[in-house]
């Protein structure tokens, strides 16, 4: 495990990290998110000690890495494996030679290296590419090699610095799946530094938001997205844009508060309140704990007491707030740092999980009308 306490980094009068605290247990993926310039890269470089922190401590397996001499540091930093952005493989070495690099630095014998490299390449599904050069591999394949190299010295902490940046959504998903498998099998503590909220939602156990060098929000991912409408929560699970309302009072914003929300809530609440409910926008997906998380904007088609609507949703584990006209702006400030494909991924994911939501609303509307 790794425990970072009061980590501060200053360059002259510029404070880049200001008392950062966090701890990651073995077998946990902890994401650190934040926009560009929040100090993410500096944090990463401090954790693997490429930069010496100005103050604060970094405990890995109980040893404070910031207090070690240069020589001690060289061996101690082997407890931290790093997966670099865009893999950063050495171009003139084959995949196998890249993975073997950390072992070579330790002067491990050639025979022993061969066995370990085979094992690592096999683990990341790249044994068949062992003798390929990085230029012959795709971005995703290169990052698999990067993961294998990061794990070569059996570290107890794996630092992944933007490991999926520049990869397409499918490749990102496969790299994250691998990361989660490695977490579970090797019980490694993973510090995942990223600006991609999809990545956090799909793989992280906990999340911390770095803002101007400070961690200003944190918690288990499931808790953050279900229990609040904070900026981090809205960034993690953004509300897709909805059409402008005709009458603001009929628009409601919903947030799944429990993992076991019955997906049939739309129909059952419509029946209970005797109204049509139109789904205007929504994002519902299964997150890492297996439960559902979602944000939905709906329009209640019949004038009803706000308290009754709120209670009907609350009884089904859904937090409902009457929205003003700002529905489309919610949660956008953090996701802007991400790439342009994020939106469509959300839409696809939501469609896959809840394909019948809009249709259900339509058929429900027809049903209610015929009953009346």
């Amino acid at each position, binding site marked *: 495990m790794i425990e970072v306490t009061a980590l501060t980094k200053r360059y002259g009068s510029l404070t880049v990290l200001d008392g950062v605290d966090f701890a990651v247990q073995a077998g946990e993926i902890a994401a650190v998110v934040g926009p560009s310039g929040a100090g993410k890269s500096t944090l990463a470089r401090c954790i693997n000690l490429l930069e010496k922190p100005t103050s604060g401590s970094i405990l890995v397996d109980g040893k404070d890495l910031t207090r070690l001499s240069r020589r001690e540091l060289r*061996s101690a930093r082997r407890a*931290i494996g790093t997966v670099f952005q865009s893999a950063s493989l050495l*171009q003139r070495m084959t995949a196998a030679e890249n993975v073997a690099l950390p072992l070579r*630095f330790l002067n491990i014998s050639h025979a022993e290296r061969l066995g370990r490299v085979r094992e690592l390449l096999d683990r990341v599904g790249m044994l068949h590419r062992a003798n390929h050069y990085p230029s012959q591999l795709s971005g995703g394949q290169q990052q698999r090699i990067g993961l294998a190299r990061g794990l070569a010295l059996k570290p107890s902490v794996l630092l992944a610095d933007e490991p999926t940046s520049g990869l397409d959504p499918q490749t990102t998903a496969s790299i994250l799946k691998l990361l989660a498998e490695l977490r579970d099998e090797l019980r490694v503590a993973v510090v995942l530094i990223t600006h991609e909220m999809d990545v956090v939602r799909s793989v992280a156990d906990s999340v911390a938001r770095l803002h101007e060098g400070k961690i200003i929000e944190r918690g288990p991912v499931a808790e953050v997205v279900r229990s609040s409408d904070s900026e981090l929560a809205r960034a993690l699970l953004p509300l897709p844009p909805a059409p402008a309302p005709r009458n603001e009072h009929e628009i409601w914003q919903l947030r799944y508060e429990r993992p076991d929300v019955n997906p049939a809530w739309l129909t059952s609440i419509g029946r209970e309140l005797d109204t049509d409910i139109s789904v205007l926008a929504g994002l519902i997906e299964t997150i890492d704990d297996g439960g559902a998380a979602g944000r939905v904007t709906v329009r209640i088609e019949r004038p009803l007491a706000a308290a009754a609507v709120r209670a009907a949703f609350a009884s089904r584990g859904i937090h409902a707030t009457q929205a003003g006209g700002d529905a489309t702006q919610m949660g956008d400030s953090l996701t802007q740092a991400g790439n342009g494909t994020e939106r469509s991924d959300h839409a696809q994911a939501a469609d896959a999980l809840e394909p019948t939501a809009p249709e259900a609303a339509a058929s429900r509307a027809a049903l209610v009308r015929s009953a009346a």
Partner: protein
Amino acid sequence: MILATATPWSGVSSLLLPALGQTAAMVGIVMAIVVALGLPLGLLIFNTSPRGLTPHPTVHASISWIANLGRSLPFLVLMATVIPFTQLVVNTTIGIKAAIIPMSLAGIPFFARLVENAVREIPRTRLDVGIASGASVLQVIRTVQLTEALPGIVAGLSLNVIAMIEYSAIAGAIGAGGLGYLAVNYGYEQFDSHIMISCIVVLVLIVQIVQFGGDRIVRSLTH
């Protein structure tokens, strides 16, 4: 009669081949010295720079200044300037031995800069990969910098060999032997057009071959 003294074509090779051998010897010896000293110097210049592995502004500024000094003088001027030094080191100021000193003094800083440039092309994260994997500074230099920069260094090497062939011809003009000496003494001063043409053709061919071969090696080293 001025134009009558051209060496017959059949006699050209007996003059040309020994001269070619002398040029090759000069360039070969000088290049060995240049690589042995210029490579470490180039690595030192880069690694003491702010982007290097062990930044050290004072050391960087001083060696950088010395390297620039060696490159700022035209070769002919440099050669004349270092005559006392040449006398001191090889105890003569004429011949191949004497040419090697100024040629090395010109070649070492040139190669050092080429090495520095080649190493500077390596993205910083690849150096970080080495450091974060627990490598010592020397291990990073050997496995990351030298390995990754090898194509660039080889390209610099062929550039340097060509420069040294040129310098050997200049040194030849003051009695160091080789193709330059032949061209000046026979071709120019005795108006021996056959020797002149032969020297030019051979020099052009050598340069072409070195460049072509160098490019081929660079390509085969680049993955």
